[in-house]
């Protein structure tokens, strides 16, 4: 009986150890993410392409790396990721018109490469131009397909829970050698 008690106590300590290990991994990941936000100046330095409006350059599921440096001017031809006021979905399109005043005030128009018309239909009611504050970042680099995981998790929540359950079980049961 004593032996059994010992075993149970040891397992509890191991459990706490595993949980702490897991918490450390999660914290490190979060720190890296926050670090990226600081370094790139963008609130969302990595985004997944959600629509086919920039084909054949970008397809649904591609991953984009953004920067959003304050002094970077917005110029025609650049690919920007922006959010329409009041909506949460980031849109990845190209700048086709820029009008900049002497004091730095910029207004610009965007259009998806694969769309026939410009984005005015996507903007807010009565809004004709985008401004710097609407920009999440500028696309600097890209990786194909990698973002598909996020899309699958969004479309099939059961998959997301299954993945989390597997990850949780793995971390808790893994024995450190």
């Amino acid at each position, binding site marked *: 009986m004593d032996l059994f008690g010992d075993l149970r106590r040891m397992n509890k300590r191991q459990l706490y150890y595993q949980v702490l290990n897991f918490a450390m991994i999660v914290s490190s990941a979060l720190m890296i993410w926050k670090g990226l936000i600081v370094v790139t100046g963008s609130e969302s330095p990595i985004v997944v392409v959600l629509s086919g409006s920039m084909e*054949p350059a970008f397809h649904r599921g591609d991953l984009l790396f953004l920067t959003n440096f304050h002094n970077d001017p917005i110029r*025609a031809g650049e690919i920007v990721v922006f959010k329409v006021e009041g909506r949460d979905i980031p849109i990845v399109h190209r700048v086709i018109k820029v009008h900049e005043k002497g004091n730095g005030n910029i207004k610009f128009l965007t259009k998806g490469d694969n769309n026939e018309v410009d984005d005015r239909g996507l903007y807010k009611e009565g809004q*004709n131009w985008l401004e710097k504050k609407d920009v999440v970042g500028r696309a600097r680099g890209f990786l194909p397909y990698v973002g598909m995981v996020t899309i699958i998790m969004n479309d099939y929540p059961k998959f997301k829970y299954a993945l989390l359950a597997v990850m949780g079980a793995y971390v808790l049961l893994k024995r450190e050698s």
Partner: protein
Amino acid sequence: FRKNVEDFTGPRERSDLGFVTFDITADILNGKNARLFKYNMVFFLTLIHLQSIFDWNVKQLFLYLSAEYSTKNNALNQVVLWDKIMLRGDNPRLSLKDMKSKYFFFDDGNGLKGNRNITLTLSWNVVPNAGILPLVTGSGHVSVPFPDTYETTKSY
């Protein structure tokens, strides 16, 4: 030539609308130099190249012709007049004659009238299979002066 009409693509104020026709002859096989020649409001754009742009990691080029100019209203204006997607494997020699601009050349205001210095440049966005997305501007550009009066009768 130029008209002053309501910008029917968006804002309802009257703005200057410009019409430009151009020819594009481009050989996008090797290198990054672009030379633009002007001949009677018809522009020849020749790209002379030094080394191949289409390497194994280039999926496509997004080419665009943009007009850049200054007006009383805005210190800097850029309007994309025409664009084209060129995939790896497409014929890298472009020879387009008498092109009309693909997009309406609306100014934000009335800054095209009498504007002597509208600069047209050809640039392109290199889209890799994976990696960095650079924006390259061809060297060489053409200046287009717009006349001092509006066209009232000519139709587009």
